[in-house]
């Protein structure tokens, strides 16, 4: 309720600032909303959205498939954990955007670069959180499973991963948020595909209403994904609290 009220206040201020024509880059909020409904059904936006979602999906999928197993291995095999730990920690805080131009030089100007950007934005935080989760998994549960004759793969699927699920999900949520940044930055720097291309078109032609409308859509998308994962987290939180 409070967040809603805060949003309303800011939107009203935005509307007033827009109507007063304080700056050409700030159109009234109502005009932006109007533009949102105008651009959303267009074929151009549809295509851009599909390309963007595909890049995001592929990059995130890759980040999950690589990040989670890597985190598990780093937690379970001490040597690998030490070998890679420093690098993961560096990359988790490094400005990955600086790498995009290099990626572009290697992978070319296209979707691949964007997918790899999303992957790099998302993967390290997922790996790190998975590692922490598995490292802190209840040791007596592991002992219990062994005492009842658990095979190696059962130890992972039936105990360790579930035990680390709260941390893994937190990592996935943070990774997804970074992934949205990655897809936009990737497309902006590559600048010829997807939502990034639209951003370029709108800002170059000074279509500020459309530009802000697109910003809002991307914000909403990032927010929705983060909230969906957070809802999943709340479901497992119940047992996480009792560990």
């Amino acid at each position, binding site marked *: 309720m409070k967040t809603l009220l805060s949003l309303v206040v800011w939107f009203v201020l935005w509307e007033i600032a827009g109507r007063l024509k304080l700056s050409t880059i700030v159109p009234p909020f109502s005009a932006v909303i109007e533009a949102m409904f105008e651009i959303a059904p267009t074929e151009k936006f549809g295509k851009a959205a599909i390309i963007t979602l595909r890049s995001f999906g592929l990059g995130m999928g890759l980040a999950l498939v690589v990040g989670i197993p890597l985190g598990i291995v780093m937690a379970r095999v001490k040597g690998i954990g030490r070998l890679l730990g420093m690098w993961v920690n560096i990359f988790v805080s490094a400005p990955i955007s600086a790498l995009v131009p290099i990626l572009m030089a290697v992978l070319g100007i296209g979707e691949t670069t964007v997918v790899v950007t999303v992957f790099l934005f998302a993967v390290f935080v997922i790996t790190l959180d998975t590692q922490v989760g598995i490292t802190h998994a209840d040791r007596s*549960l592991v*002992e219990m499973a062994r*005492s*009842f004759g658990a095979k190696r793969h059962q130890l992972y699927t*039936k*105990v360790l991963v*579930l035990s680390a699920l709260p941390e893994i999900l937190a990592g996935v949520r943070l990774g997804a948020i970074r992934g949205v940044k990655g897809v936009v930055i990737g497309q902006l720097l590559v600048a010829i595909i997807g939502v990034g291309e639209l951003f370029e078109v709108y800002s170059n032609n000074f279509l500020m209403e459309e530009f802000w409308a697109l910003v809002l859509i991307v914000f909403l998308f990032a927010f929705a994904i983060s909230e969906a994962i957070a809802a999943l987290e709340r479901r497992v939180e119940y*047992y996480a609290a009792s560990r």
Partner: protein
Amino acid sequence: MTEAIVEVKGIGKTYDSGVEALRDVNLSFPKGQLSTLLGPSGCGKTTLLKIIAGLLPRNAGQVLVKGKPVDGPGPERAFVFQDFALLPWASVLRNVAFGLELRGEPKEKREEVARKYIAEVGLKGFEHRYPAQLSGGMRQRVGLARALTVDADIILMDEPFSSVDEQTRRKFQEDLLDLLRHHQKTVIFVTHSIEEAAYLSDQIALLSPRPGRVSKIVRPNVDHSRSPDEIRRDRGYLDTVDEIWGMLRQYV
């Protein structure tokens, strides 16, 4: 004396930190009886139990189960943990059936067996609760039911009542005696409570600390077929408590 189902011979254990936990421990555990490992903290009793369970490697000696040397966990031994070790995301039913789940028993069959033991430990109606919703005593009953469900001949219990409050403990001890006698299990039980040891055991191995060695074996002269209240006023029971206390005193 009845035949031994578990024997340990010359067990030695030194931790990586250099602490010598056990030295040349020799013990045999009679079939169908309840044997206690009793001693002050730091005497290596839990270490010995985990070596028997195959959960900890040893540096010297042998563990024989039914005459055969063993080197890891096996289906003839089931463990009850001090901290219960229940899966917090699984219901009571799934927790109790977990040993059978790991063995690949079909869901229907393992749940049928689990339900039977849930009822036996007095948790009927709690099948679909989660561990966080249960008291300490109830959680340990789940742990016990899980150990019974896999139908092991030997139940290894590591201070199972230490996280359970006093009133619950008494009732639980009585239930435990009934249950184990009924199923003719061999139990190896770790405790630091003299009363608990004297009340429950057929055989008590007293361990001395640093490094842990067997200092004495006591066979309490207690008739377990009598009622709990009678046992607690029994001459043999009280003498056993005194005898053990006299011996443990020097370590405290």
